[in-house]
């Protein structure tokens, strides 16, 4: 259930923060389940693992299907505290769009997850749980409020271009003046005006995937998060094309979800293969 004020907040700013959704005891179980997956990921699920830390942390990994493969995490996808909020934000019939679990010292420059013309007209939401406390200067997710909506969204395109071309690695062969000149808006990414989602374990953020977001700051030993992705029920060919453009794997949900005993889980995935087949044909 999402309150009217929360819906307005999400529609206006592109995200919603809920504090202490999960108790310390629940978080302990979630963290334990996630750690089990991370520890075994490279041996048992190598194909689902990507290395995402670059020079910063070569061992940093992102594990796809972390929620689908771990029953103790799967229940997060149908937990009413998450599910009902998503129903309020996305409407009935929303679909599952995958999960990931990231671990390590990973910073990422300003970007939105679903770039492309009109992509922001179709609502897709990412739900993040951070396992360690985060602050603005220690790896908290930063967002530019309202940047999922046009024309503000388009005016931030220089950030997206910079992210794609450099992923924040500034050409070291350029002098300082040229380096700064090439920065979007002439400032370092960490100085772009934003809101930082400073969080403690148990807090949850739901954000529109066209919202510009980034992570900066010292990451110490690294941080861990679990993310689940959802999308509004696709009702047009354009929606299906939008999904196909970035996340064709959505049309091939994990078998554990297709075969789930949970009506909520099955409801989010059971029509996806047929939808994907329609597009491909």
């Amino acid at each position: 259930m999402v309150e009217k004020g929360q819906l307005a907040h999400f529609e206006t700013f592109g995200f919603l923060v809920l504090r202490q959704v999960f108790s310390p005891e629940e978080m302990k179980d979630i963290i334990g389940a996630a750690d089990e997956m991370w520890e075994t990921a490279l041996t048992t699920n190598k194909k689902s693992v990507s290395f995402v830390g670059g020079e910063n942390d070569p061992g940093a990994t992102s594990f796809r299907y972390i929620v689908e493969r771990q029953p103790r995490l799967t229940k997060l996808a149908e937990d009413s505290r998450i599910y009902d909020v998503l129903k309020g934000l996305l409407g009935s019939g929303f679909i599952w769009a995958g999960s990931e679990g990231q671990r390590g010292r990973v910073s990422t420059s300003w970007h939105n997850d679903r770039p492309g013309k009109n992509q922001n007209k179709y609502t897709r939401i990412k739900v993040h749980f951070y396992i360690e406390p985060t602050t603005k200067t220690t790896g908290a997710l930063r967002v530019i409020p309202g940047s999922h909506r046009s024309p503000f969204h388009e005016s931030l395109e220089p950030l997206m271009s910079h992210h794609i071309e450099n992923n924040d690695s500034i050409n070291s062969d350029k002098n300082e003046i040229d380096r700064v000149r090439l920065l979007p808006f002439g400032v370092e990414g960490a100085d772009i005006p934003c809101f930082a989602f400073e969080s403690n374990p148990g807090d949850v953020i739901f954000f529109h995937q066209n919202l510009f977001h980034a992570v900066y700051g010292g990451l110490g030993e690294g941080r861990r998060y679990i993310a689940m992705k959802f999308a509004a029920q696709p009702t047009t060919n354009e929606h299906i094309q939008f999904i196909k453009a970035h996340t064709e794997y959505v049309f091939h949900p994990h078998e554990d979800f297709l075969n789930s005993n949970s009506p909520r889980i099955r409801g989010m995935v059971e029509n996806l293969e047929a939808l994907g087949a329609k597009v491909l044909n």
Partner: protein
Amino acid sequence: MLTEQQITQFNTFGFLILRNVLNAKEIQKLNVEFETKLTRTTGGKSKNKEERMSWPSLGPDTPFTSALLESPSVTGIVSSLFGDDYFGISCNASSLCGETNWHPDADNLHMKGLKVLCYLQPLNGNSGALRVIPGSHINALHDDIKSVQMDEPKHDGLTQLALVSNSKSGFKIEEIPATICSVNPGDLLVFDFRLWHASKGGSNDRRMISMIFIKNAKTPEEEIAVNESVLKSQKNRAHRAKAAFGKRNEQVSEYHPNWVANLGNNPRRQRWINWMREKKYF
């Protein structure tokens, strides 16, 4: 004076912070003039009073503050953003206290104006620094914010645009996602009239110099917006100045006759005065 990137930054996010524009000596001069004026307010210094005080600073008793409005440090910023077709219409000093709820200074999006602020003490998010919603000077964000319920604000003569929650279930000032504009003395904070802004956590007697510039209207819609803004701001500032100085029979006109006389025959100031006279500022 601003780089192309700074101009783009301002146009995109609606504000800009320029560091170390004024040096320590200049800040000290501003402080001396501020302190002198403050001791002459009703009831003495406001440090122990929860009362905002504001007074015009274009008179001969605040020469350095008065000159700031036309100084190259400030007009260079404004010219970069507005070209040369603008008017400098106000230089006020304020002793602030408490918090200020979310609001834009202009709701009509045809209004092209900006404020340049100089705070005389360091400020951060816990001590009353201005907080802004980047990009909220234009739609869709500007108008969308009005649908977000906020806790009942403390009124300060500001037009109430936010959706007020009568049941205290709205978002508090600090719960609205914003950028905190932490500053040190010497920094200048420039923001678009239409940008939503607020402050939280400030102690009494936060000292600020604010200068207002309006871009010359080019269209009928802009002309209407300017006229609305002129009327509203005159009432607000006159009310505050009278509250601060009225009981002591001080002259509370915003524009000192000496400044309006323009004895130095400054052509730019004369242009401003001609326009303000036309708009019935005095």
